[in-house]
């Protein structure tokens, strides 16, 4: 376990009811890294995150955390935004403080939304609940923050507050961030590293900086030569779309197509689509 690693996963496997959900996963995340795990529904992203959170136990393999990390150092918001909903906000805060042995709780987020402290958690809207959960976790000052795909349930205002809080966390504490998402909008540029999961394995692991350089799209009317590494293609009657990965500048010289840049959503679609293409050809 390297000293700069926040989390190291080796050979992680998990099956439920005979179905393989995680398939021998290896992963290393550095301290302070911001990572997004993308993929389709059912690819295993949420399962992996829950294993990291200690809420699920894998069948095989192990997870190692940075030395000195206690359970309090992990902040986890599940896809269900699980809390003790019958508590009021006040009670929820008090319980979280006591159990995690936190001295101060910063009510900024709660005040932003003008939440009544006597209101029961189950009466909050989805977005309010997310922010409340986040505020609890922020007070933990976690070394590792695990966030499942919840952000799409919130309105844009709440999403912005959420993101800004996460940015503060990254700046103030160098927190390692692992997010799970399958749709992207504002949060696209927060993660520095993108992992794409499909059927319990990683099919892509790239820095977001370089991913844009390594994956390009060609739209053309004719078929492209075989030499061009095509990850995924869509051939309609007139137009054809080709996703090229890995892209290198030399390709431009030999094959002077118009290589378009692709945004994150499409990148993920291309990777996933490519998996299907592979499967069909087998």
């Amino acid at each position, binding site marked *: 376990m390297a000293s700069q690693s926040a989390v190291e996963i080796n050979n992680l496997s998990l099956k*439920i*009811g005979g179905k393989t959900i995680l398939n021998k996963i290896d992963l290393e995340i550095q301290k302070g890294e911001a990572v997004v795990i993308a993929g389709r529904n059912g690819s295993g992203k949420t399962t992996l995150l*829950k294993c990291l*959170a*200690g*809420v*699920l*136990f894998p069948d095989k393999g192990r997870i190692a955390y940075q030395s000195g990390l*206690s*359970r*309090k150092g*992990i902040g*986890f918001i*599940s896809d*269900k*935004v*699980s*809390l*003790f*909903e*019958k508590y009021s906000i006040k009670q929820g805060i008090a*319980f979280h*403080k*006591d*159990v*995690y*042995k*936190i*001295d101060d709780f910063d009510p900024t987020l709660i005040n932003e939304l003008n939440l009544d402290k006597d209101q029961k958690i*189950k009466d909050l809207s989805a977005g309010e609940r997310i922010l409340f959960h986040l505020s609890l976790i922020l007070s933990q000052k976690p070394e590792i923050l695990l966030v499942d795909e919840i952000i799409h349930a919130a309105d844009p205002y709440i999403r912005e507050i959420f993101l800004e809080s996460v940015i503060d966390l990254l700046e103030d504490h160098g927190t390692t961030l692992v997010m799970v998402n399958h749709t992207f909008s504002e949060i696209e540029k927060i993660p520095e590293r993108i992992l794409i999961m499909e059927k319990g394995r990683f099919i892509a692991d790239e820095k977001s900086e370089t991913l844009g350089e390594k994956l390009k799209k060609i739209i053309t009317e004719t078929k492209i030569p075989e030499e061009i590494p095509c990850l995924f293609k869509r051939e309609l009657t007139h137009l054809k779309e080709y996703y090229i990965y890995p892209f290198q500048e030399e390709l431009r010289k030999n094959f002077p197509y118009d290589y378009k840049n692709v945004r994150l959503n499409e990148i993920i679609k291309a990777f996933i689509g490519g998996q299907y293409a592979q499967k069909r050809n087998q």
Partner: protein
Amino acid sequence: MKSSRLLSEASMLKKEINDVLKQTLFFALIILLLPAFLVLTKIYPDRSYLNAFFPVFQFGLFFWAFFMGASLFSVERGQNGMEYLLSLPLSRYKLIGLKVLPRLISLLIFYGIFLIFFFGPGSNSLALSLICFSFIYFSLYFISLSFSASSENFLVLFVISFLFLFLFLGLEYSLFWLTVKAKGYIFFTPKITPFITGDLEPFTVSFLIMTGSCLLIPSLAAFIFSIKRFDIKPPRVHNKRFVTILAPLFIIGLLASLFLSHRIIYIGTNDYYLTRDHKLIEHNGYFGFRIYDGEKAHKIRGFYPSFLPFAEEGPYVYGGGYDCIFRVNTADFNVEELYRPPEGKNFYGAQKSRQTIAFLEYGGRRSFEGIEKKLVLLHIASKKMFRISLDFEALQNGHIRLMGAGTYKERDFWLVSIMGAPEKGGQIFRLWQDGEFRLVKETRYIPLYISPYLLTYSEKDIIISEDREGRFETIRKIPNKKQYRFIGIGDRPWFWSEEENDNPITKLYSWRYSSKEEPGEDTICALLNLETSEIEELPDVKGWPYCFSGDVCYSEEINLEEKTLAVYKIRENQINLIRKFNVSFKETFHPYEIFESGIVFSQGKKARVYAFPDLRKIKFKHL
């Protein structure tokens, strides 16, 4: 205020206590209101609130035991809090422990309340016995606790728990039944009713606790071990793990239960008889007879609910309780029934003299005052019986004892004493074989017959009579200032069997009652010389004399404080300590019995045998 001072565990515990408290209050409310509802709506007609309350309470507690076990995660499950719970900074074991603790305490508090009711008001309205209730109450809790992670559906848990409970109870009953049969108690049928009514043997409690634990601990252990990997996967993953651990543990528990129940279950008490040739007869009303000859244990067939041995001759031991008179052959291990009372009749007081067994037969129920009595003389070889009606008025009152038999001028006779109330004394009659019945003597205290002498007592003297010309004539009167009572053989001090003496008896030992009419520390033994009519005091002789023949006399001295039994050999006025034993006098029955050939200690299930003359221990295999 530093909240970090409070342990994480304490906060969790606080939460759990709050949850349990809320549930408890809700439950208490229902328990208090339901009887009122039942009474008001006349579902329970003619009952007062209190009378309706107790059964509701008792059965409500079963539900509570189930609920306290099964509801471990119900609060979290009911509010989408499972993932939050499992991501808290507490290990799984601590989490479970902190959840179980307040629920267990609640369980115990309600049990305490139940006990208050049980020993106080309403003890009649509670349907189940204490042992029955407690057993089900706690078993239900542990069962439902073990299954608490096996389903997210409360109804399913309810069904599983109660199903398992019935399985468990059935298993307990089967264990009991199997062990009883395996141990040979073929005449004992285990019944469920005593369990419900609480009319149980003491060993049943230890049986239930020990075997119950052996069967329940595997479930709990399997639960605890499976909890380590408890997560939000569907319950069937947990269940698979749970069953995998449970199966082998349960089998071990079952084997342990079989072993334990075999050791624990002892039904009825064992009676022992040691023959002259050191064979040990063991009788238990439920398994019949076993004869140990040192090497083997022989089982004897047949159902003999009682065994009161009254004579031994050659290989035969004669016994009769309340069922029939029979004899056991210790050589070929057969039992021969000699007499069975006809319908509506009973018998008692069997004694043997030569080839005749004499006993009293009376009609009616088990009261033998004022009912028709007959003296029966049974000829052993032919089994012919000769019945003599005891119609005399005198014979209708008082306790009849057969003192001995004899022959005078080729006429057989029996001596019968009839003792009334202690202040009144009694009479001695001679019954001739042809039915002639004559009053022989009157006596103040229990007389003694040693052919041809008859010892009777007046207020102040001992009167020795001799059988002359068909009548007993007083030959001597010995002043008895210190009120000695002279004893005969063994534990039937009024009787000497003629055939058992080759040597004529010339010396009799006595014991003396203290003023309370009970043998006490101020007992002094005395020796009566029949030839010289002299009474010699034997202050050195301690304890109770126990004589088997003219020469063979022992003394048994019990010290309750030191819990010892000292056995001495008495010879005239000399005593020699043979051996001292440590005895526990806890049990109500006599922990040992002195026979002519030795002493048998039977405490609980074990019997130890020590043989005269030196009281060394004899080993019996298979005992």
